[in-house]
């Protein structure tokens, strides 16, 4: 085995251990703290049929509630952070984030159409509605950017950001319109909660979607780290370095959008992730994507588990919407990053 391979294996092992520890911590901490040994024994029971005698309720909380929640949280933020990196590199815009492309606004509209306006007559789940809305919004934004004469390079990137802002406004207005027209106070509150992000519904079937999508988008991105680096001096420069620009752009932006749509449809619109985490990771490991992508995925996963724990213990007896916690932590963190960036120049 070469030294390089050994180093990479070592890093991958470290990342895996850190992630497992974070998930275990997220599972153990909560309104009723469940000791780590109980968590470990539950896992042993479920995974190997170890047969430790445990409280049925504790076991249920760990396996069906806390564990799924922690895993879904980790997947969502990892996926969104990677999506953020992709968009920032390809659009060459430090402010690009998955929500900029109108994806979360579209998801909200889709969710509202299903829950409030009754589209699908109960046969369509909120997640599915949100996903459909997200994809629709993204397609509209992409078409608009194209119609605006997008093309390649800095101008094309600018157009897609502008188109995304227009799309977001449109879909947010649609959402507000539907809510004010036909939602009861009860429904409006529920929607509000969903919009701010909600992990309480995370179960194993959500893990089954979130985990492959998060892994998928991270792997696709890892496969293209050199191409992403090559965009440093713009799309033309990337092309002259041998990157098939169009193909990479289409593939990666589609992957990022799809991942965002899936994550938003599972947990709602948690703001700020795709923006803050990549920037924080850049400060720690630099701008080269070979390190940035794994670092951001890992940091994203850990941050959201931490934020989820906070959301459960900050106010006793009440679970705060996760989006409130991420924004409360994220906004000051982002301000700090900006200030640091200024002085470091």
């Amino acid at each position, binding site marked *: 085995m070469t030294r390089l391979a050994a180093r990479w294996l070592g890093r991958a092992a470290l990342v895996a251990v850190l992630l497992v520890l974070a998930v275990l911590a997220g599972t153990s901490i909560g309104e009723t703290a469940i000791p780590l040994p109980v968590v470990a024994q539950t896992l042993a029971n479920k995974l190997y049929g170890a047969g430790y005698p445990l409280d049925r309720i504790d076991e249920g909380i760990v396996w069906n509630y806390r564990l799924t929640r922690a895993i879904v949280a980790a997947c969502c933020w990892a996926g969104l952070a990677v999506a953020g990196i992709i968009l920032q590199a390809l659009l*060459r815009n430090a402010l690009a984030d998955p929500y900029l492309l109108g994806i979360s606004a579209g998801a909200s509209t889709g969710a509202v159409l299903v829950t409030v306006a009754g589209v699908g007559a109960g046969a369509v789940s909120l997640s599915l509605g949100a996903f459909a809305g997200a994809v629709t919004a993204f397609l509209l934004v992409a078409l608009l950017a194209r119609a605006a004469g997008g093309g390649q390079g800095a101008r094309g990137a600018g157009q897609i950001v502008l188109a995304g802002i227009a799309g977001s406004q449109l879909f947010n207005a649609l959402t507000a319109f539907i809510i004010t027209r036909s939602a009861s106070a009860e429904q409006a509150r529920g929607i509000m909660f969903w919009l701010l992000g909600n992990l309480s519904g995370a179960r194993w079937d959500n893990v089954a979607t979130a985990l492959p999508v998060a892994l998928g988008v991270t792997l696709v991105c890892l496969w293209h780290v*050199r191409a992403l680096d090559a965009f*440093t001096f713009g799309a033309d*420069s990337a*092309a002259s*370095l*041998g*990157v098939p620009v169009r193909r990479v752009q289409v593939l990666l932006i589609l992957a990022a959008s799809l991942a965002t749509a899936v994550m938003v449809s599972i947990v709602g619109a948690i703001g700020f992730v795709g923006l803050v985490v990549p920037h924080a990771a850049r400060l720690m490991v630099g*701008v*080269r994507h070979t390190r940035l992508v794994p670092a951001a995925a890992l940091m994203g996963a850990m941050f959201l588990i931490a934020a989820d724990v906070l959301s459960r213990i900050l106010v006793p007896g009440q679970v705060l919407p996760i989006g409130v916690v991420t924004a409360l932590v994220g906004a000051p963190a982002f301000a700090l990053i900006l200030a640091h960036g200024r002085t470091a120049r």
Partner: protein
Amino acid sequence: MNGPIDAPPSLEAEALCWPARRAPILRGVSLAVRDGEMLGLVGPNGSGKSTLLRLLAGLLPPARGEVRLLGRPLRRTPRREVARLVALVEQQAETLERITLRDAVELGRTPWLSALRPWGAEDDGIVAGAMAAVDVQHLAARDWASLSGGERQRAHIARALAQRPRILLLDEPTNHLDIHHQLALLELVAALPVTKVIALHDLNQAMRCDRLAVLQAGRLIRLGPPAEVLTPELLRDVFGVRAAFVTDPEDGARLLRFLSIS
């Protein structure tokens, strides 16, 4: 440095036109770059030098005509393969990313790397050599934003050298450079064992090329050895200046002296 006269063309343009709609910027440019030569592109601002270089590098698809690389149509050569043969140093390429100069130069290895062929000691050596060639190794760890215009230009050239191309396309590479580095750079480029196409504004520097191509309003109006191409009549017609050749008594070199605008 004189290129072999009857070597086959390594890069060929045939009746290039661009763009298809709107007023044409290039109108039927044909030229064959010989293997190993240094071909200079001269012409007034806006005459189409940068556009021609971008077409030759495959960054723009020709509206009509064809570019051939080692006899093969550029259009049908995979980008990665093109990048292993042709490197382009653009007139301006900037970034807001917080990369170091070494990061920028390392980008030049992109066409040679893949997930299955990771960075290796050989790449480190090539990058170090490329930085040494343009005298920027002492700046390797510096932030891009902190570099001067000339230092950035040299870094771009180092990046192109790190690509290990057979053909180097340079768009006004001596822009931003002080006179020492201008001369050093031209010397370096001339000595490189690759084929060079170089857009230049300084006509005395252009005299060092093996051949010169003169562009005017998107047309190739002259192609040949500098001494035959750069005549007082051409300078008057194309650039609108009165000029004369003077001979340096020191070594007998012929220099252009510009008298007035006509």
